[in-house]
């Protein structure tokens, strides 16, 4: 069937939460009312990335990208755009007055600075229709591998591409495959780590929701490369849309003979199953993930043996992250040489980041390795809201650290981030401005690790708890001389002694903030002062005598009677009574109250 218009509506988790399904329903109804339902095709897509502006809708052939579309906007879009051919300019994303609406995004840095490999199909195809994936060269890489390449040639190509694991560690993918391929075993397994857990990171979810077949295709290629005929996707149960679309995709792939016996008529057979994670962060750690699939409490175990030697049920197993897999088909089709042209010397290709925090364009972006933090924040991210000053970027989630403003021009790649005391991690990037207290930030991440520690080894189970208690003390204004040194002692030893990567990296948020913002810690401990004005226990409210008119309003509103004075003369706050609720500040009509 030929349509004169295609309407793409993002159905990622973000846009779904902002009523995308209702938009779809309203659109269907409106099209039917106008009798054009057979002329306009609605395409349910995955995430476009710019969640901040969602729900997002793109109308082709014009290529008009509408943002913040509300259900009540549908009638206007149908009447004006789809019936009369007039663009609804007020909803356009980017330049609203361009001649050719398809070019409205040309100057939008968020889109034009990205290089989309892993996210190539997200927001472009309907993830629930395998034909759309195939139309975008889907499964061609698998066909090429199976019919034109030996398993070793596949591994060599991946090695040559320089692809490194996108889940955090950055281990060379080709080497991992080679280790597993070298093992002699009656059974091997291919696993996909879709247990994305870093706070704020959602690139894996986006890929699974927007382009599930790319993961399936890549896992089949991996199976061929290492000699496995069974794969498992370990996906967190909190990703219901991703799970649903994966299930649909696996079913369709089986129907098309792209999973199952004798794929493409070759001797190679491969099938996939999904295993749901129950929400433990630690199950993103490879041995914990496999222990969980094995049917036990999800906890890491000591290595060696490494999973490539003894993984699932004691058999050689590889585990790669969703984003890593999403690169594989493209590398095989376009070649390692092409992939090598993108990125830096030791970090090839792109990386998807989930940018959040104090940034204008919250969302998901895929950038070539080597882009600077400055470009990410200002060109793609649209800068810091309210013109505030950039203070630091936190990458790598609870295992990572902060990159301060002084390093804003460092090219982002695996090794540079490590050198700065942070890490690539899975790609969470939280931007902080001058109003963020770095001790508070460290406490936030520590609290996460304390909750998510599996409890197996004491350095992580007890050590992170003790570190958190010290941070809590410091941010409550009860810091003691020696607390910073205790933090350092604990951090150093937890890094050295913890059983798994989660524990070994848990002190990083503290170590990196100590490295760059030690003065803030010292202000908390020695002066009981929070320079950023975040830690409430240390805030003090003062009345500025010159500004106070002596109206007595604050005194009347103060719930604890901490403010006294003579009418028409400056009032005073009794600090010993003040509970720092801030009511006085909100009440004062003369801005005569300040906090510091």
């Amino acid at each position, binding site marked *: 069937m030929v349509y004169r218009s295609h309407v793409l509506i993002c159905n990622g988790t973000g846009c779904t939460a902002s009523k995308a399904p209702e938009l779809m329903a309203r659109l269907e109804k409106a099209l039917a009312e106008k009798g054009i339902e057979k002329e306009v095709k609605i395409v349910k897509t995955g995430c476009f990335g710019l969640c901040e502006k969602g729900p997002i809708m793109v109308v082709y052939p014009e290529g008009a990208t509408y943002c913040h579309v509300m259900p009540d906007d549908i009638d206007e879009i149908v009447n004006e755009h789809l019936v009369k051919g007039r663009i609804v300019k007020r909803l356009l994303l980017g330049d609203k007055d361009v001649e050719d609406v398809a070019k409205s995004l040309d100057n939008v840095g968020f889109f034009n600075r990205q290089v989309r490999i892993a996210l190539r199909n997200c927001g472009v195809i309907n993830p629930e229709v395998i034909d759309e994936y195939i139309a975008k060269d889907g499964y061609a890489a698998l066909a090429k591998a199976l019919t034109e390449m030996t398993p070793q040639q596949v591994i060599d190509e991946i090695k040559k591409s320089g692809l490194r694991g996108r889940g955090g560690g950055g281990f060379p993918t080709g080497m991992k495959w080679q280790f597993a391929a070298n093992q002699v075993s009656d059974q091997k397994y291919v696993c996909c780590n879709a247990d994305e857990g870093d706070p704020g990171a959602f690139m894996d979810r986006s890929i699974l929701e927007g382009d599930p077949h790319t993961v399936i295709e890549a896992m089949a290629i991996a199976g061929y490369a290492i000699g496995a005929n069974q794969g498992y996707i370990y996906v967190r149960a909190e990703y219901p849309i991703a799970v649903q679309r994966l299930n649909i995709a696996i079913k369709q792939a089986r129907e098309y003979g792209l999973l199952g016996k004798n794929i493409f008529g070759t001797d190679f057979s491969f099938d996939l199953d999904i295993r749901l994670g129950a929400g*433990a962060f*630690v199950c993103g750690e490879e041995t914990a993930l496999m222990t969980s699939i094995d049917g036990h*409490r999800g*906890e890491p*175990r*000591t290595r*060696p*043996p490494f999973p490539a030697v003894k993984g699932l049920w004691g058999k050689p197993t590889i585990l790669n992250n969703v984003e890593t897999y999403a690169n594989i088909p493209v590398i095989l089709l376009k070649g390692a040489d092409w992939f090598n042209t993108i990125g830096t010397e030791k970090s090839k290709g792109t990386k998807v980041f989930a940018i959040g925090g104090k940034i204008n364009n919250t969302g998901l972006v895929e950038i070539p390795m080597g882009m600077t933090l400055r470009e990410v924040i200002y060109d793609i991210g649209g800068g810091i809201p309210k013109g505030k000053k950039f203070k630091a970027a936190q990458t790598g989630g609870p295992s990572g650290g902060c990159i301060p403003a002084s390093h804003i021009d460092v090219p982002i790649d695996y090794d540079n981030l490590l050198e700065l005391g942070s890490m690539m991690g899975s790609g969470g990037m939280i931007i902080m401005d001058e109003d963020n207290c770095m001790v508070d930030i460290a406490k936030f991440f520590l609290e996460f690790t*304390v*909750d*998510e*520690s*599996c*409890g*197996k*080894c*004491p*350095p992580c*189970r*007890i*050590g*992170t*708890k*003790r570190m958190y*208690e010290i941070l809590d003390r410091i941010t409550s204004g009860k810091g003691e001389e020696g607390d910073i040194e*205790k933090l350092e*002692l*604990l951090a150093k*030893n937890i*890094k*050295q*002694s*913890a*059983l798994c990567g989660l524990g*070994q990296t848990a002190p990083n948020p503290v170590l990196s903030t100590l490295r760059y913002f030690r003065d803030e810690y010292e202000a908390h401990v020695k002066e009981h002062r929070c320079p950023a004005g975040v830690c409430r226990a240390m805030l003090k409210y003062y009345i500025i005598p010159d500004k106070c008119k002596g109206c007595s309003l604050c005194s009347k509103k103060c719930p604890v009677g901490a403010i006294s004075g003579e009418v028409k003369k400056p009032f005073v706050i009794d600090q010993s009574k003040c509970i720092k609720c801030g009511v006085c500040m909100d009440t004062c009509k003369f801005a005569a109250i300040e906090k510091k």
Partner: protein
Amino acid sequence: MSEFVTLTIDGKEVKAPVGSTVLEAAKSAGINIPTLCFLKGINEIGACRMCVVDVGARSLQAACMYPVAEGLKVVTNSPEIREARRVTLELILSSHEKKCLSCVRSLNCELQKLAQELNIHDIRFEGELQHYPIDDLSHSIVRDPNKCILCRRCVSVCKNVQTVSAIETVDRGYKTIVASPFHMPLKDTPCVNCGQCIVACPTGALREKNSTEKVWDALNNKDLHVVVQTAPAVRAAIGEEFGYAIGTPVTGKMVAALKKLGFAKVFDTDTAADLTIMEEGTELVDRIKNNGVLPMITSCSPGWIKFCEHFYPDMLDNLSTCKSPQNMFGAVLKSYYADKMGIDPAKIFVVSVMPCTAKKYEAERPELASTGYPDVDEVITTRELAQMIREAGIDFRNLEDEEFDDPMGEATGAGVIFGATGGVMEAALRSLPFLLTGKDDDNIDINVVRGTDGIKEAELEIDGLKVKAAVAHGLGNARKLLDKVKAGEAEYHFIEIMACPGGCVCGGGQPIQPASVRNDMNLMAERAKALYQEDQSLTYRKSHQNPRVLKMYEEYFEKPGGHKSHKLLHTHYVARENYPEK
């Protein structure tokens, strides 16, 4: 021939077999690396991080798990490593309830010992302590999570060795706790009360339900005739509590100590073991001759019985109906002995000293009161007896040996070896020719059922009949054996099952040997030696030759499997749901 690799430990070249760990290699080179969670063959998980060493990796590695490799360079002792271990231990201590002075494991606590060895006198990282309720509702086992250091030895032994899985690690992070499903009291789980968790625990987080006060009270009660019976395994291990080498039998001193404690009579449970062989052997012969349910399985071990009731309820008919020796003896004391001595059975208070915590549960089973009174009134473990001896100020090592009391004092070697795995089977096979044919043979030592292999098999030809027997110790082995029987892969006439690995000598009520001892020796075999040694020294070594037992039949029970026996010496079993809906 195993292959060897050469590695360097602290600058010294060490040869170690392929597949061994850095911990083992270091040990062979005379270097002791501290461990805490590690319990060889039971808990090898590298969790506690006390044994960390530098192998040149990004972080320190657990020596207990790290495999040796050619050319590996290991440092086990450096300022960094010592500090890492100390910090970890201080962290463990910071979350441990330190009521050491009044702790049941004081002076026998692996955590305490490690703190001394690592020179810890100050804990720099004190913080929040978790406060958990103590579970003391079980008849046998008390769990105190406040003293738990989450080494998981108990979880491993319960799950992997015993395949009971009554406890697991639950919750996460600092709230992690070893608990039963849904935090139920242990008594509501399929826990079989074997107490292997207690003897695996490095701290005071697990202990037996203490009955010493009740025994003191009974001893103080002038209206009661308080008698005691001691199981064979007790004499093989109680010496350890008083500084004797493992495997030293101290029967005479133990009897002397019990008399000093004030028991009116000190009896030997072995006599009841001989009685058991008469009853059980007769039952087996009956089953063989009359197409009864086979294989018949022993019923001496109350942990095994509860395991069978929970996990193999379809095999209850395979269990011998014989009461365990402890309860047979109790019933004998309150019937035959009461009659003979002219004592009102209501006034007889029977105390058992057992190597076993499950015996405490067994004594409480309501059906085990066939005289109208409980067969056994109180059970104390070997450890509790040692405690009472110390409390009474008895100088155990300098006691003169004394003998068990009549009229049930004399037992055979067959009764003595009941305490080791294979012992019941050997005792039965010593008497089976006689019980089956009325004629004795010359066989005494049946070595094929001795030793600590998990499952042992024996075949004995008696008068043309090939009697097939099997022995399993440790419930995981029992499970393997029974699954084979159920699958029709193996056929036996008679099976001996003991809940505890090694049998009663390594029961849950025995003296606790730390991992540092257990990791380097076969405790099961060493303790069993004491029993086999005593067996060798006795005049009578076959149960059916025991003159006391024969007299008992003559004067009271008439014949094995007779009417009185059935009433007093046999019992029945119930199928138990693992987690019944309430």
